[in-house]
């Protein structure tokens, strides 16, 4: 692990062991194939069983539901290592854990938890999270998807956009407004009549991740589908805080990948009789990347410590997600420059990470939205409303 400021000295032996096992998994099972999967627009679905066996889905949820029960720093290190492999892989596990398992754990009935969490933890079920709609992801309160009460059940109508995993999911967590205009969450089996999930096939980013729509056309679900423990936007936003926390760690894994590639390339690429690593302008770029990684990692570690102490605020998560993703994206662009022409081919991992990070910078709250969340917190003035 790239660790210029010895953050490892702050970790417990179990956190180190967890990081190492995920690192070995990524080195052994992901890196050898990721270029081909990304180039061919394929998601490595065969990895889901191993990911489940390792316990990486919803790893910070309790053991009684089949999860690993690790602390939040360990959870962050998992996301870091997965995204060192590819942002798409981290997104796959992040969605399953933070956006599907977490709402069932936090808002679900005991029966829902017992039914779904062990299956999702093992990777026997895949889930997706339907919140964003095509008319604007940054304003989820304006959603048009409706849940009409019908007898003891509900009829869902509407459409969701940019939904990671939706074409391969077994269940979807769907957020919709009820007859009183209150946002409610539903666990919808994707085989329910009226549910469809066409794949989005034109992405130049996250190509090793499956993204789709969710179309709900008179999709009728029973009373057992409703997540009873939450009403209002705080439901989905609570999930997003969990996912954004993981992203604050994950992006740094991508930064490590592009930095080490650029550093190694600079050490062997010679121009005018010297390796380009000996050139001041190249050193400046590498130092900027290491500096950003070091600051980001210390920030992520402290964020994890706060989360474990139950003192983390969503504003702190916004600041960390905003910062760490943007520095990773900037680092990827610098690495792309250092690699010159080789930086635009997928023979090296830099352009793949760079294009993936364009998505990561946008999803789970855009860079600008997080700016305004933090801005509102520190000034008391809301610029979002």
């Amino acid at each position: 692990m790239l660790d210029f400021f010895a953050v490892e000295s702050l970790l417990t032996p179990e956190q180190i062991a967890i990081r190492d096992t995920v690192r070995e998994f990524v080195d052994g099972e992901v890196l050898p194939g990721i270029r081909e999967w990304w180039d061919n627009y394929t998601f490595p679905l065969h990895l889901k069983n191993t990911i489940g066996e390792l316990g990486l889905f919803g790893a910070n949820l309790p053991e009684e539901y089949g999860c690993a029960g690790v602390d939040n720093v360990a959870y962050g290190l998992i996301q870091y290592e997965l995204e060192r492999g590819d942002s798409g892989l981290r997104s796959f596990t992040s969605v399953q854990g933070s956006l599907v398992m977490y709402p069932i754990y936090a808002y679900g009935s005991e029966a829902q938890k017992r039914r779904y969490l062990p299956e999702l933890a093992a990777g026997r079920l895949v889930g997706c999270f339907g919140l964003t709609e095509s008319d604007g992801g940054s304003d989820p309160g304006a959603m048009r998807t409706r849940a009409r009460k019908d007898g003891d059940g509900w009829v869902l109508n509407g459409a969701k956009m940019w939904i990671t995993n939706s074409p391969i999911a077994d269940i979807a967590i769907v957020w919709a407004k009820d007859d009183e205009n209150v946002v409610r969450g539903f666990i919808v089996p994707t085989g329910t009549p009226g549910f469809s999930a066409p794949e989005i096939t034109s992405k130049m980013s996250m190509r090793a991740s499956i993204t789709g729509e969710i179309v709900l056309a008179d999709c009728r679900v029973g009373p057992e589908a409703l997540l009873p423990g939450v009403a209002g936007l705080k439901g989905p936003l609570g999930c997003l805080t969990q996912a954004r926390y993981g992203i604050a760690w994950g992006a740094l894994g991508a930064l490590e990948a592009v930095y080490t590639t650029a550093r190694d390339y600079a050490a062997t690429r010679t121009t005018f009789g010297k390796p380009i690593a000996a050139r001041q302008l190249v050193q400046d770029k590498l130092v900027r990347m290491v500096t950003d990684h070091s600051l980001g990692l210390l920030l992520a570690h402290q964020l994890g410590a706060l989360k474990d102490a139950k003192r983390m605020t969503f504003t702190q998560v916004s600041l960390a997600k905003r910062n760490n993703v943007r520095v990773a994206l900037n680092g990827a662009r610098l690495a792309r420059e250092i690699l010159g022409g080789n930086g635009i081919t997928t023979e090296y991992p830099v352009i793949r990470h760079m294009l993936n990070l364009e998505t990561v910078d946008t999803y789970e709250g855009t860079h600008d939205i997080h700016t305004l969340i933090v801005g509102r917190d520190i000034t008391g003035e809301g610029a979002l409303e």
Partner: protein
Amino acid sequence: MRIVVCVKQVPDPNAGVARIDPGTKRLVRDGVPNILDPGVEVALEAALQLAEAGGDNTVTALAMGPESATEALRRALAMGAHEAALVTDPGLAGSDTLGTARALAAAIKQVGFDLVVCATESTDGYSGMVPGMVAELLGVPHLSFIRQLSATGDAITAQRVTAHGYQTLRCALPALVAIASGSHEPRYPALRGIMAAKRKQIATYDLAALGLGAADAGEAGARERVLALQPAEQRSAGAVIEDDGTAAARIADFLQQRGVL
């Protein structure tokens, strides 16, 4: 069946060049990353698969080394070993292969066993002598270079790698098997295993607990002396055969001379 797996912590072979202390002529283990021997992981995987194949089986990971060797034992526990034990004593420093085998054999007797599983050789010393010595001291058969292992009742069936193919062996328990490198793909330690390993106690034995004295192990008891060390020769580049129409025949001759074909 009680299975004991001999476990060793070694300097990470992927972390750079191993350093030898010129005074003691021993491998420097301080200040370098130490890991569970990759060859031992293969042996442990073989033992775990055997234990999981059915029956009431326990796998105990047993290491000899300083306190820091508990890290290797924790990894073995995280991979799935049920129990772990450490033989540690300042008097064990400088043990030769026989001293190591004596300490391990004594500990294996205390732990109790039906089957001992070792790697063929360690990834630091590479002597390859300890498994045979442990078997001899325990008075049990030694099955070497084993690539496949199964158990039926009070016997094991094992496939042994030879220069010309494979031998299938059947052996009554108790016994010791040395697992061939690369024969099993070690599993990644799962998170639940890592968390469970944290909570498990590791039994420790010193020389006195094993009924051994200074003459049995450690520097004082060592009969081997390392006289000199020199770096291995760099491998020279291989022969390049360019195809002038006879390449296939020349490659076939090359392979035939070495007994591959």
